[in-house]
């Protein structure tokens, strides 16, 4: 089990990592954390000083396991995976070998042993409808489990858009009454790592940051780590120059699409989506949606599922306005007719009151 007296550096050394290897580890970790290369020595220092091997509990609620799938696709099995060697993943019902009562027992033990210091990772949203009956684990509703585990956590990390913002389950009409982790946990630091799923390196990165610096990284207004969610996809997109030049693909198979022009008109949500896809990329840095010719869906933003069609441009209305406008115009005509009637009557009265003006009427009495 855990060896809390050993620093991460010691652990690495134990596994035969050389000093050059450690240097490499620090440089790539700094890069992954979005820190400038000059910060790699700070990372090195923090890691040699740090002596912790925190317990991590991972709860999965209304989710599709995509986030866990993503995590397991983090570069395997080398450097970053060492970070997970450095933590104690005490409960993750998808990944752990134990099941049933044994699994729940492991969770209870980990909570007891590390009360107040463990890290809670959550994926999936929490259903509140029908008393939470839509999703239960070992007879507990997601709500009660989250409340119970969050109480003893040092910090909570919402992994994926469902946990962070409600995601797909919360999308209109939200049949299960789903809410996000932050809606439930309000007395603990909660960090959101949204995305559907989040970039694996980002999941690893934020945990690495917690390990390295002993604290959550700086967060934006939506509780997301700024290092990964500080820029929009659009800002960092290699197709941005085409946007600036006004060159847009009009369909997915036209000349513009083949030339790699901007996908704005095909519904790319890059301008309003904060994430690191354009730089970190996916599948070991191979590509990301825009590079493969598809616009950004905006999956790391709240309500991305309800934000209008994926293939309609960002500047277009998300609900039709023509019908409302026509109705309003008809109402305008009706009220206008009433006003016209009033005007006619005002004018008519003035006309009726008109008595012929003679030269004696030019002066006041």
């Amino acid at each position, binding site marked *: 089990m855990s060896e809390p007296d050993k620093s991460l550096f010691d652990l690495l050394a134990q596994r035969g990592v050389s000093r050059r290897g450690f240097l490499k580890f620090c440089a790539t970790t700094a890069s992954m954390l979005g820190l400038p290369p000059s910060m790699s020595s700070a990372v090195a220092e923090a890691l040699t000083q740090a002596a912790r091997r925190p317990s991590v509990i991972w709860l999965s609620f209304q989710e599709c396991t995509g986030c866990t799938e993503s995590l397991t696709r983090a570069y395997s099995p080398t450097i970053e995976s060492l970070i997970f060697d450095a933590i104690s993943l005490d409960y993750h019902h998808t990944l752990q070998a134990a099941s049933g009562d044994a699994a729940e027992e492991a969770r209870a033990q980990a909570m007891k042993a590390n009360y107040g210091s463990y890290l809670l990772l959550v994926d999936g949203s929490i259903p509140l409808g029908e008393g939470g009956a839509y999703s239960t684990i070992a007879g507990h509703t997601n709500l009660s489990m989250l409340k119970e585990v969050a109480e003893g956590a040092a910090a909570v990390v919402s992994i994926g858009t469902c946990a962070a913002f409600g995601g797909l389950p919360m999308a209109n009409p939200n049949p299960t009454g789903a809410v996000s982790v932050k809606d439930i946990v309000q007395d603990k630091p909660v960090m959101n790592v949204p995305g559907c799923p989040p970039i694996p390196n980002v999941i690893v990165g934020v945990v690495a940051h917690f390990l390295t610096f002993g604290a959550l990284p700086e967060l934006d207004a939506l509780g997301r780590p700024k290092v990964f969610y500080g820029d929009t996809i659009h800002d960092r997109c290699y197709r941005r120059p085409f946007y600036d*030049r006004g060159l847009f693909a009009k369909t997915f198979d036209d000349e513009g699409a083949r030339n790699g022009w901007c996908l704005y008109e095909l519904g790319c949500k890059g301008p309003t989506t904060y994430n690191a896809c354009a730089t970190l990329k996916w599948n070991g840095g191979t590509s990301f949606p825009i590079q493969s010719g598809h616009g950004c869906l905006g999956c790391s933003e709240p309500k991305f599922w309800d934000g209008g069609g994926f293939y309609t441009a960002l500047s*277009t209305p998300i609900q039709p306005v023509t019908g409302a406008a026509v109705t*309003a115009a008809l109402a305008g005509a009706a009220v206008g007719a009433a006003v016209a009637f009033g005007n006619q009557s005002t004018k008519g009265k003035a006309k009726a009151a008109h008595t012929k003006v003679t030269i004696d009427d030019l002066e006041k009495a």
Partner: protein
Amino acid sequence: MSAMDLLLWSRGPGLAIAVSIFAFGVVLRLFEIYSLGRKADLAKPRVNTKACAGATVWRRMLPDMHILRRSPITYVAGYLFHFGLFVVVFLYAPHIKLIESTLGLSWPALPSALVDLVAVLTLISLVVVLVNRITDPVKRLLSGFEDYLTWAVTLLPVLTGYMAYHHLMFPYQTMLALHILSVELLLVIFPFTKLMHAITLFISRWYNGDIAARKGVQS
């Protein structure tokens, strides 16, 4: 309410409400204007006035050269910001996309950097227009709350659009939402303020051209 909520509201219900008030107001105002009626002119006209009245609608786009010399700031800044608004509103790719999605009409866009430059010119000329309004004795006498309100409501969409494009002050989502909301504000007050001139000037010029043309004068 998060920035995304605000953005979604502005792109959804907000826009529908604003466009509805705009449509309601414009139709109402046209009823108000036309319902007052106009007596048929019994004096024998010199010429058929229709073509002349139409010509006046276009001719008034151009300044009278003597007046231009007397009041260059009004004309230069006025033309600049109207022209700028036209370019920014109708030749920027995302805006064309909006028009296409609602009306089905589309045309080529200008490069964003060029539109950006025009936006700056528009903002500068709007500031000049305001300073001119405050310092020029005639304009100051004519101006009331409505004039400053409409100035601000005209400036805001350009300013917020520029700020959103350059990621100034607020995150892009917030700024974009504010940009759309500012346009919605413009739509809402449009029919009930002098902004309505964008529509009624065609009616006014027609009447003016018609009245003059009956007498044989191209106005």
